[in-house]
């Protein structure tokens, strides 16, 4: 029994831990999935930025190429003019040269943030300016016949072309390297984030699968418990009906032989009164007395077993009525002992009417029965509303509930403190049968009635100084 309780506790603990783990796994997976979708968005944006930069480099290169083709076109036309002396080529030279500054201007915005390229671009612009000047002067002087001037200008212009070509080639190299670097770092980034995301995804998948396995196990276990519980309920119902059968057997079949014992010993006495000795007479009396007592015990056991909880019969019970009924049932005893019963106004509770009457009846008759010989019994019944948490040994689920505390105090003989729990045990008696009659069922029935109502009952006393009985009944209905 102890072992199974321990196992159950152990299992319950790991159950709690497992459910915590499952929740953690599910929660983490959810967070990871949200983070993943957010990070994919970010990565996408970042990759677009990278591509943008690569494109920019490509645009710089293509613009530089345009500048150099314009430069070569202009040079080509100038050379052709010098060779053919056809003035039509002068205009073509100028037209090609004129496009160059605009082309260099276009590069301006593309190299922002790159200082070395900006410096080269500035130098390029200067040389382009020089080139334009010399080209124009060459065109103006073309009509002159002094070949020395033309040649000098032509040479200066070509020097500028060389410088420009050199700068463009430098810039192209730089941009080429830049592009290569940017493409590489884009690929690196892509590789890295995807690897990182794969890890996160893998973790999420592992977590989700684990949570799934745990949940599946939990569901199977729940199903198992449910079936187990259903079986237990079935067994309980069966044993309840067996108990009812037992009650029937106890009332009839057990009573039968007792009745015979009593009847025959009776008849023995009445028929052979003259012939039997005093000793035999006393023995027969003892047989009869024992049989009689056993009948009483069986009847008491039967009434105890009849105090059952049947949810459908519960209704609102006015305890004042229950008390009045109990007093009327005990009227003879109250009169004989000149007992005085003071009672405050009692509440109404959800419960079983006849059981409540029995509860008061047993407690009152108890108090009257155990009165002090030199005093008339005085019983006080008081009521107050209390919180569940003040009740000793209250169930955790009852701590938050309000309870009616009904206190029944008497001025009787009381009992020793150590008996305060024993007196509620069935057939437990504190006094010899010669002192006080009874089987010891009364308070056991009280305890059963109170627990049928989800309540609590306690006794408190000091020997010779009366007794207090505390009944706690829930103020809200817990029966269904």
């Amino acid at each position, binding site marked *: 029994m102890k072992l199974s309780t321990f196992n159950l506790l152990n299992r319950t603990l790991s159950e709690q831990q497992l459910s915590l783990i499952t929740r953690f796994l599910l929660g983490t997976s959810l967070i990871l999935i949200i983070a993943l979708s957010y990070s994919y968005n970010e990565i996408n944006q970042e990759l677009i930025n990278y591509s943008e930069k690569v494109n920019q480099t490509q645009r710089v290169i293509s613009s530089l190429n345009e500048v150099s083709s314009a430069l070569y076109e202009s040079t080509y036309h100038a050379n052709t003019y010098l060779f053919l002396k056809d003035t039509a080529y002068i205009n073509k030279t100028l037209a090609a040269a004129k496009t160059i500054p605009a082309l260099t201007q276009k590069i301006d915005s593309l190299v922002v943030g790159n200082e070395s390229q900006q410096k080269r671009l500035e130098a390029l612009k200067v040389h382009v300016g020089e080139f334009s000047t010399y080209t124009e002067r060459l065109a103006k002087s073309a009509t002159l016949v002094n070949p020395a001037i033309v040649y000098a200008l032509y040479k200066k212009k070509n020097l500028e072309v060389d410088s420009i070509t050199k700068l463009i080639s430098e810039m192209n190299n730089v941009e080429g390297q830049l592009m290569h670097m940017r493409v590489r770092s884009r690929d690196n980034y892509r590789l890295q984030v995807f690897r990182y995301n794969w890890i996160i995804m893998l973790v999420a998948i592992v977590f989700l699968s684990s949570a799934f396995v745990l949940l599946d196990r939990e569901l199977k276990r729940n199903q198992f418990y449910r079936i187990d519980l259903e079986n237990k309920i079935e067994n309980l119902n069966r044993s309840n009906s067996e108990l009812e059968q037992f009650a029937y057997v106890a009332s009839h079949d057990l*009573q039968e032989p007792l009745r*015979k014992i009593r*009847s025959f010993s009776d008849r023995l006495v*009445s028929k052979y009164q003259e012939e039997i000795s005093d000793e035999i007479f006393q023995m027969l009396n003892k047989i009869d007395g024992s049989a*009689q007592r056993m009948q009483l015990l069986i009847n008491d056991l039967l009434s105890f077993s009849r105090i059952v909880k049947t949810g459908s019969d519960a209704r609102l019970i006015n305890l004042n009525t229950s008390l009045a009924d109990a007093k009327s049932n005990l009227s003879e005893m109250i009169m004989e002992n000149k007992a005085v019963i003071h009672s405050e106004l009692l509440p109404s509770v959800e419960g079983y009417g006849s059981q409540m009457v029995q509860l008061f009846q047993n407690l009152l008759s108890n108090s009257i029965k155990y009165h002090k010989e030199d005093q008339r019994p005085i019983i006080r019944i008081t009521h107050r509303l209390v919180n569940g948490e003040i009740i000793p040994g209250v169930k955790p689920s009852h701590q938050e509930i309000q309870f009616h505390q009904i206190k029944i105090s008497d001025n009787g003989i009381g009992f020793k403190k150590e008996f305060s729990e024993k007196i509620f045990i069935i057939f437990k008696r504190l006094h010899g049968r010669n002192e006080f009659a009874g089987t010891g069922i009364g308070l056991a029935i009280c305890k059963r009635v109170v627990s049928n109502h989800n309540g609590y009952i306690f006794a408190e006393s000091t020997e010779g100084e009366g007794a207090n009985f505390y009944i706690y009944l829930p103020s809200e209905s817990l029966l269904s």
Partner: protein
Amino acid sequence: MSDKPILMADDDADDRFLVQAAFEDNNLSHSIVFFEDGEQLLNYLIPEEDNSAPNLILLDLNMPKRDGREVLKIIRTNDKWNDIPIIIFSTSNAPDDIVTAYQLGANCYIIKPSSYEELKDVMLSVHKFWL
């Protein structure tokens, strides 16, 4: 009237003996015919001529073959036996049994007393009232 017998059907031999003894100890001289079940009682009753109908029937409820309820029903549906007083003599104190017995036409319901002295008193009162 008193020469007519009392019929008693009870499967419990001890109870038959005790009832006989109670009559004897009360110095009552009725003749009692005992039966172990309801069928025996009916078999005795049916061929009887009208003039020898019993004075009184003491009937146990729970018996083999035909129980007290069946016997009660058969006797009460026969006009010839309508006037025979029938006393149910049973251990059962269940309200259902008592109500059913009266509904079927019992004249009295006595729960078997738990002591011999009581039984003697009960039989004396049966004699005084019904015989």
